[in-house]
């Protein structure tokens, strides 16, 4: 399996007042196969931007991201879509579930893009729906699920394609402590079992017990370790 390597990654934005903000300022990072890294940082520090860069949702201004033996920053739009579909499993803070589809169908959505029938996709997604603890809620619509349950559906959706890279943005933000631990353990197990790298953005203090490395992102720059004030009580 592949390691994830970031080399001097930079992403700038122009704010409303015309000021240039370096959301990601020359970040270099190596995540070995099977490792799960946690990123802490205050709001606006660039964590979500970094994940978006890793998922090829936005283009960096400079730097490179190597994964699977290639520089993914050079991928075309079509190859980027393929990369997101087959290589990456991610959950972002703002996610969208189809209101008219059940939890199981939502989890299976990604597989349709790979040519699966809906029934076939649901069969494959069933395992992951159970692993996120929604076995008894698989046929419920999103409106019938709590925020935490919807989040777990999004997590199942991220895992259903058996990704080679995990990217998670506050995956336990809406979960209680017990559920949070279950999900964090699941993510760690997936990374270790499948020997895939994972990057987890979080404020959850429990996450430090489940990850292999902890970093802090502040003003677009990465430091090892975490400051107490960045960890939610």
């Amino acid at each position: 399996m592949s390691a994830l390597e970031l080399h001097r990654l930079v992403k700038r934005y122009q704010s409303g007042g015309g000021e240039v903000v370096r959301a990601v300022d020359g970040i270099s990072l190596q995540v070995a196969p099977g490792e799960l890294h946690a990123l802490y940082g205050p709001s606006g520090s660039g964590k979500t931007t970094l994940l978006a860069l890793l998922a090829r949702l936005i283009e960096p201004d400079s730097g490179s991201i190597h994964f699977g033996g290639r520089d993914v920053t050079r991928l075309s739009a079509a190859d980027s879509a393929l990369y997101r579909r087959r290589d990456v499993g991610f959950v972002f803070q703002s996610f969208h579930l189809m209101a008219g589809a059940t939890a199981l169908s939502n989890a299976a959505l990604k597989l349709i893009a790979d040519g699966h029938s809906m029934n076939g996709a649901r069969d494959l997604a069933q395992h992951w729906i159970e692993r996120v603890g929604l076995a008894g809620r698989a046929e419920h619509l999103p409106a019938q699920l709590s925020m935490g349950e919807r989040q777990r559906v999004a997590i199942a959706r991220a895992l259903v394609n058996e990704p080679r890279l995990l990217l998670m943005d506050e995956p336990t933000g809406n979960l209680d402590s017990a559920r949070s631990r279950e999900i964090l353990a699941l993510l760690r197990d997936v990374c270790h079992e499948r020997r895939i790298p994972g990057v987890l953005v979080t404020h959850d203090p429990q996450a430090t017990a489940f990850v292999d490395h902890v970093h802090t992102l502040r003003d677009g720059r990465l430091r090892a370790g975490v400051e107490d004030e960045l960890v939610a009580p």
Partner: protein
Amino acid sequence: MKPRGSLAYRLLGVRPGALLELYRYRLRHHVAEELLAGAGIAVGVALVFGVLLANGSLTGQAGRLVHAVIGSARLDLSARSVDGFPESLAEAAGRLPGVQVASPVLREDVAVAGPRGGRRLVQLIGVTASLTALESEATRNLGAGTLILSGGVGLPGGLASAIGTRAGRPVELISGGQIEHVDVRAVFGNQTIGPVAESPVVVALLPSAQQLTGHPGRVTEVFIRPKPGAQGMVERELRRLAAGRLDVGPADGELRLLDEAAQPVEQSTRLFAAVGLVVGVMLALNAMILTVPDRRRFVAEIRRQGFTSRQVIAILASQAALLGLASSFVGIALGYALARLLFHEVPLILTFAFPISSQQSASAMTVLAAVGCGVLAALCAQLPPALDLRSKAIDEPLRRPGEPGQSIDRATAARLGVLGVLLVLGAIAIALAAPSLTILGGILLVAAVLCLVPALIASIVAALTPIGDRLRGSMLPLALSEVRATATRSVVVVGIAAVAVYGSVAMQGARHDLIRGLDNAVVDYLDTADVWVTTSNNTLNVVPFELKAAQTKLAHTSGVAAVRAYQGALMDFDARRLWLRARSPSAPRMLEPSQMLSGELTLANRRLRAGGWSAISSALAAELHLRVGDSIRLPTPSGVERFGVAAITTNIGWTPGAITINTNDYRRLWRSASPTALEVELRPGIGPQQGRRIVARAILGQRPGLLVQTLAEREAVYKASVNQGLKSLGEISTLLLVASALAIAATISAAIWQRRAQLATLKAQGFVRRQLLRELLLESAILLVGGGLLGAVLGVLGHALASRWLQATTGFPAPFAFGGVQVLLVFGVLAGVSLVAIALPGYSAAKVSPSRTYQW
């Protein structure tokens, strides 16, 4: 995960079954919005299909009828008057080298009455057995069965049931004022005579028809089938035989004439179909716009998950296609019902010159065109989320709070506004430079309406904001804020209102101008006499009758001051079936003052009385590049004759055009002294009804089939014919307005219902129900008034352009007159229906409990 290799997957990128599943999920949660969108598409398709069906059938049905009769005939030798030509000439045509089949026919306009009473204007067709040799659809199954008609007539099934008769029973046949009782020998259905079964015709053997019409030994045309390769030679020989006194042309030449006569109907159909399509797209977009934020989030999410652009397009397009197809088929059914119930009447005046009826049948092309419009509407409505595919910021719609994509920036609104103004100027320029393209200008105005809407909304908001800021306790600031925040939806609602008002004002305005112009023409045309004697309610007055002795007796009857013969005919001139009118030189006037376009009236009247002069309608004059003082060569039964042009007039209500000469010239050249109408002037002191009785007593004994009408009665017939011809125009524009009003109401109501969370929040802030209801109604009123005003202003311009087109291109009398009351009425209907329909859901939504703010 390896991709599956099915063909559909390789083509679309997604399996068809998965596409259906995705749409099922969508329907489960958004069934109301999809129904609303579907209803909008169905209404648009119904308008398009109903109009196309009603008017497409006009020439389509005539075409089927003509071809059903002429069969394999390629050439036609036809008379230039209703008196026809000798049968011996038809026999000579049959003996020409190269002629394989020559079938003589006698055609004359008559009336038929059955047990149900009332007269039906039909065309009597006298045929011989040779017609079956042409192997037409109408005669293929007759064979020797034509002999069954011996001594009687055959009726098509449609006509027979309309007049309440059947085979073996007698009917009244009124020809030239004479009433003949004749037996119905056969009633023919579709399986025997094809499309002729629904046409207003009566069939008889030639000798019977000659006897019934008083034209023994005469025919009016001969259908010719040349031998293979001999058509050119036969045509030359026929022209030699005709010697300039008969017309030689293609056997289906009548279709070209009908095309020309039906031009205004075709053009207005196209405009209405275009307006209907735009309204349909707007209605669909309107409903789907409510779900655009959700769709955009869906598209962003699946792109994030790795769906390619092709796959996203496949998903959006499949959903649009499914919705479009289902809605279109509902629209087709609705449109068919509309065509049958509302648009089924053929303009009466066309039936006076062509044997067409109101039978409608949808061609595959019409259905496909209508369905295509529906699917197109649905695809357009999917455009906003599809446009996100251009953006590289894939998940931006997911990261922006609130409803993404609802704002329209000022630069875009300004650019569209400029484009709108340019389109308006373009439409005016087209109308001025090329009046025949004015309908295109009308369509450009529709586009202009849509382009101007964003700038209009921005302007209204900018103008009202300072006012709202100064008012105390006003809900105006809140209403304006909501209009700004939901700019896309506001644009679509205003757009629908504007297009609907534009279409209605333009069409109704042009219709009123036309009615007014034609009413003036009718009054001027008819008020030269106190009593009119004609053969029927055929307002062209082209059916002759014999009345020699009775006419003389009438002239000497006490109470009658003068009796003048009027003669009229239809003249085929190139691609036009012209209306020829001949007035007596002793008539008070030869021309209608209100219809004069060029020339001096007194001089023109004098010239026409003298003879050798004519007045021609403007479209004909334009086509031949003629002015007053020039001359025109007219084809007459005596040969081609040159007439001076004394005046140029409107078309007097007959699209192909009208020519006016005096009765002396007519008698000399058409070799007929038979009047087609009598103008009777009464002595002073004799009232109209008394006069009618005097005239009726004098002539009905000899010609019981004639119609004697007072001036007022005759005017009423004409005005009814005018109104009938334009009725569907009024119905279509009213339908457009009501459909749009209901759609606007449904959309605003749905939007209001969706905003209950926001209303709950306002309630939690301390606003009361009355205030919220005021805000909702104010917001709706701003949109409707804005859209209505824009539509009204451009609608008046459209009205002016349409009336100009009617006058300049078709020659109709349609002087533009601004109808302020009518504009207000159109606007009032739209606003009234919409606001009433909004009031109830608005009231319900405003009752929402403030505690619900914590639930959403």
